């Protein structure tokens, strides 16, 4: 008798273990289809080529093969019935800090030697949170504690895949800069005896960046001199190469055009200062982050060809955001500036489509608004040849919405990256239901 009880116990243990493992992994397991899909009968918002009602998208090996109506799929292709729901390109967040084990190297003001690619955490649940809102790609950045922060990284949100498979190597390599209140630490309470970190003013922030860029120039000259001597006919005896300085090397890469600046800035004057600095040193600015007062300097931004990555309407949360206006994104778009809407948060990231939708209230059409989180974002990250619209030849990063994605009543039902389904609302709800009714589930 005791043997049979033991056996029952054993079976019970094995069952519960199996179920527990299954449900644990189910949440991390995408429904892999080998990158081959046919999505049928969707309202396709291509973003770059208008709307295709009752359209189909055929995906082969993760690439969009055909976009049209009544498409046929090779045998064995996974079919997704959209039943008239809305299919859009995967949403791209141009400014966030998710999937990282660290945000700021805040001890020093100048830290371009740090690289966010060193601290990717593919286990961050925010990745899944983002997927539930149709986000497929993020520009995940160093924080804004330092005038010169660190090198950022662009990731695809392939939940459950190892960190190295998330990195989008084709994206622009970008370096984070920051200006204003965060940098001068104006909202920080100092303990007695602790000195205020330099810089403590906006002039200081500009000056310290300038000083570091001058150092980088010297550093480059040092190496040029060394290489010249080394390659000369009679190199001097005992020639010693300069010491490698990772901090200045990163800045040298910025000056050489191998890195693009992304600058956190709020007020118009500091943005103008930074544009001047870029002109003086000949480096490229990818976009201003937050840029609440961009509407005041649209001519200058247009002339410099610099875009902005902004919130839609959460202004006035600190002094330097006091002159922000909710019309900023819409107005700058109408003036011809490349605008994207960002989340800057692991929570807001799941309703970026709502944020973009608000731009309709502030004067954009639905078609213009959806660009703020798709093709415009792709352009700012240098990946618009790969993603950002539903076009033949692009990667099949897609999101299926129940209603028009710019509607207040919509929700994301499915998120696809390179033809693999990483989020399926129905499937997930079924799994939860099953887990809650079976004993031993989590």
């Amino acid at each position, binding site marked *: 008798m005791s043997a049979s009880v033991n056996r029952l116990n054993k079976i019970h243990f094995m069952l519960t273990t199996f179920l527990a493992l299954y449900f644990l992994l189910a949440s991390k397991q995408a429904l892999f289809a080998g990158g081959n899909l046919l999505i049928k009968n969707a309202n396709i918002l291509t973003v770059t080529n208008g709307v295709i009602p009752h359209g189909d998208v055929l995906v082969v090996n993760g690439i969009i093969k055909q976009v049209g109506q009544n498409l046929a799929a090779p045998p064995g292709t996974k079919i997704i019935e959209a039943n008239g729901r809305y299919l859009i390109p995967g949403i791209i967040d141009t400014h966030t800090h998710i999937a990282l084990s*660290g945000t700021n190297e805040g001890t020093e003001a100048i830290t371009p030697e*740090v690289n966010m690619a060193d601290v990717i955490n593919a286990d961050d649940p925010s990745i899944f949170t983002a997927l539930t809102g149709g986000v497929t790609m993020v520009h995940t950045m160093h924080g804004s504690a330092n005038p010169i922060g660190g090198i950022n990284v662009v990731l695809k949100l392939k939940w459950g895949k190892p960190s190295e498979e998330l990195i989008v190597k084709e994206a622009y390599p970008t370096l984070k800069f920051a200006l204003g209140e965060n940098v001068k630490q104006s909202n920080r309470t100092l303990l007695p005896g602790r000195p205020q970190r330099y810089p403590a003013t906006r002039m200081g922030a500009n000056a310290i960046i300038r000083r570091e860029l001058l150092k980088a120039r010297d550093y480059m000259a040092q190496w040029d001199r060394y290489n010249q001597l080394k390659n000369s006919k009679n190199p001097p005896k005992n020639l010693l190469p300069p*010491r490698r300085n990772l901090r200045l090397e990163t800045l040298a890469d910025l000056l050489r055009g191998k890195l693009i600046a992304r600058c956190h800035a709020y007020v118009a004057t500091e943005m103008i200062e930074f544009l001047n600095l870029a002109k003086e040193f000949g480096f490229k600015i990818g976009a201003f982050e937050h840029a609440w007062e961009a509407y005041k300097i649209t001519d200058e931004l247009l002339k410099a060809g610099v875009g902005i990555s902004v919130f839609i309407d959460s202004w006035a949360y600190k002094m330097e955001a006091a002159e922000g206006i909710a019309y900023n994104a819409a107005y700058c778009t109408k003036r011809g500036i490349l605008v994207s809407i960002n989340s800057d948060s692991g929570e807001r990231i799941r309703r970026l489509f709502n944020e973009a939708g608000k731009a309709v209230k502030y004067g954009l059409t639905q078609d213009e608004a959806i660009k703020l989180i798709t093709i415009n974002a792709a352009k700012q990250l240098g990946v618009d040849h790969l993603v950002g619209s539903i076009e033949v030849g692009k990667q099949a990063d897609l999101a299926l919405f129940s209603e028009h994605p710019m509607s207040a009543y919509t929700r994301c039902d499915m998120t696809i990256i390179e033809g693999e389904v990483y989020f399926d609302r129905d499937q997930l709800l079924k799994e939860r239901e099953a887990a809650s009714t079976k004993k031993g589930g989590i």
Partner: protein
Amino acid sequence: MDRQLKLHKQGFNRMIPVVLLLAVILSFVSGLRATPASDEVKPAYALVNCRIYTMSGQPIEKGTIVIRDGLIETVGPVEKITVPPDAEVIEASGLNAYPGLISAHTNLFLEVKEQTQPPSPEEFLTAYTQPSEPQEFPDLLIFKEIKPKKQTIESYHKAGFTTVVVVPNRGIFQGQSVVLNLNSENPNQMVLKQPWALHLNFTTERGLYPSSLMGTVAFIRQKLYDTQHYALHLQKYNSSPLFLKRPEYDPFLEALVPFVVEKKPVVFQCNNQEDIKRALRLVNEFRLNAILTGCNEAWRVAGQLKAAKIPLLVTLDFRPPTTSIYSQQGEATRKKAETEIYPANPATLFKEKINFALTTFGLSESSFLKNLQAAIKAGLPAEAALKALTVEPARILGLDKQLGSLEPGKIANIILTKGELFDEKTKVVRVFVDGIVFSYEEKGQ
């Protein structure tokens, strides 16, 4: 009356051998208590009639091990070994002999400054406003800080360990470890290798730069590049000082030169799978002679580890790291992962044919056996577990010529157990370290 006397006499006669044996045991035990000084001539022992797991071939069912002067003189089946006349014979029938276990990562014998009470506001402010103490220790020899304690040694003996590596535990460049034989409380007598390796940890618990993980990686890279440059500068200057300004003396870089340039071993502490990848990138960039320790998420990066061919010191601590998905879905999931998923780490590495040693890093001696049993239950063959605590660590430490197996000429680090090693009820009854015997037979046995 006569009969009674006779009986009494007989009883007395019968008592003689018992008394003699008692005397032998007493002298033996008292010999134990007084740890022999290192200049004393050590006695020779012969362990006879035990089952011997030599780790260099099939176990010997009934064998003899002769120990002389701290080394193994001979080992083999009883019938083939002649016990030298001067050897003290230890009858060990029914007992198993194994090589002493090695834990290649411990923080034993280090003084812990325990904070009993939270600091007062004044103390906090004083500490906060004082200039911070240096937080990096590349030139620290942990050997100089150890204070061996008898109690710790005994508890390690009882768990089967005769050899440990003591690893420093502060900072990013933590300092240099030492390999010790648990033969006494005298550090000099204990040393097997000093220093062994430089230890690095991707820590962020600091007030100064770097205080973030990406800062830590950048800091390590910069220091390693600096060391390369410093060594090149020194080398050029030493070969000819003409037209070359002398390098400014830098104790930090000076301490790193043997490890970065001369490729002495560097051990990276890897607390999660991303730490392992970070370490592998650094090893690749700087061509270091590296070993990874911690590694309880090695199972998640087995492919990369297999390709890298870097030895691992794998802890039997199965708590999922805080970064892990299993730590971020509530306590029930975390606990389940600790008992059902992470114990399979060593088994996975074994199946992937990745070389590893097991360590007690982060564990108490009591949880060591429990966790080892869990690892075996999760699929690690007991034989592989034994190798991972003897032969493998000896090889990784570069001490495989003198440790890890029971062969003539090797150090006499031997444990005698009642029962199979790693079984729940098994007791370690005797331990030989450098031939010095410690007895843990309980009263009444």
